[in-house]
């Protein structure tokens, strides 16, 4: 995902590279071409490149507003009764390990119902 974008006015003068206070811009010259490079982890988004560019070629808005990048996708566990999303597989395993027992996936509402039924059943059995 590239946040640093230039428009067709860029003529490769390297003013931005020379003026970047974070050294977050560089370039590579090969046989017949020059490539402008940007490092988002060094970039402070200070805007100096945008200010100094003699060609107004830098589209600074992309450093300010951009699309979301997917970071990680994990399997999720849903309530066994109503399908509501509860937690991820990994989180469920983590909690069950700490609890040292298996837990049936139920949302708070259906867990409460279940507990109530279990208590009622237990009391009936006790009376019997």
């Amino acid at each position: 995902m590239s946040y640093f974008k230039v428009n067709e006015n860029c003529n490769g003068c390297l003013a931005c590279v020379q003026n970047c206070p974070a050294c977050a811009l560089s370039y590579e010259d090969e046989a017949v071409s020059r490539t402008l490079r940007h490092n988002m982890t060094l970039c402070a988004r200070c805007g100096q490149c945008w200010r100094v560019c003699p060609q107004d070629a830098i589209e600074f808005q992309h450093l300010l507003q951009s699309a979301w990048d997917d970071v990680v996708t994990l399997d999720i566990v849903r309530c066994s009764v109503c399908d509501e999303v509860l937690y991820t597989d990994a989180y469920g395993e983590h909690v069950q390990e700490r609890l040292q027992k298996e837990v049936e996936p139920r949302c708070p509402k259906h867990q409460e119902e279940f507990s109530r039924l279990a208590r009622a059943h237990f009391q009936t059995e006790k009376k019997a």
Partner: protein
Amino acid sequence: MIVAELKPLKEIAASVAEYRKILVLGCGSCVTVCLSGGERETQQLTRELLRSGLFGGKLPVFESGTVIRQCEKDLVETYQQVPPDTEAILSLACGCGVQTVADTFEPLPVIPALNTTFYGASNEAGVWREVCQGCGDCVLSHTGSICPVARCAKSLFNGPCGGSQNGRCEIFTDNPCAWAMIYYRLKKQNKLHLLHEVHAPRDWQPAGGAGPRVRIRTGIGGSPQK
């Protein structure tokens, strides 16, 4: 934003002359943005120290690097290594960064390369002006968002002094009179009545008169394990 400026080269050289191996450490935040202590200035300072001739033949070994923010200890201690045999760190951060790095790597000496000056704003490229002094009791809602603490030479709260001439400050004649600016701003906002409001005498303790200040925000989780 915190604004700082590079100290004179002679002063910097003198403050590190006794060390044989120095890490020159820039900061990727405020001082990068005000063009005083970022990676570019760090490299430049290292070069200038090397060829300055100010070490009388006993030239130290310099290494350099930049941390995204020197003012956060967990970040610094997790992500910044100090090369072996380093005898001192020359920090291009603001005073907050210098001190945090010193706390992180103590007892290693951490020397400031910058003079930290003020909280600044930039209305034109390359120019930062002091507009806030962190007084801890903001009155900008009464003054059309123009600060009488920072921008009036006398930090007056009741309007201009008798020396305000043609909208200029009598003390620092290059500066506009803050209260003239406040008047004209409130006029544009149709809020001149705010100047008639009577406020209680100001308590200046939040402005630092009661010692170093602290902000504590709970419930955000602890520092990550190294």
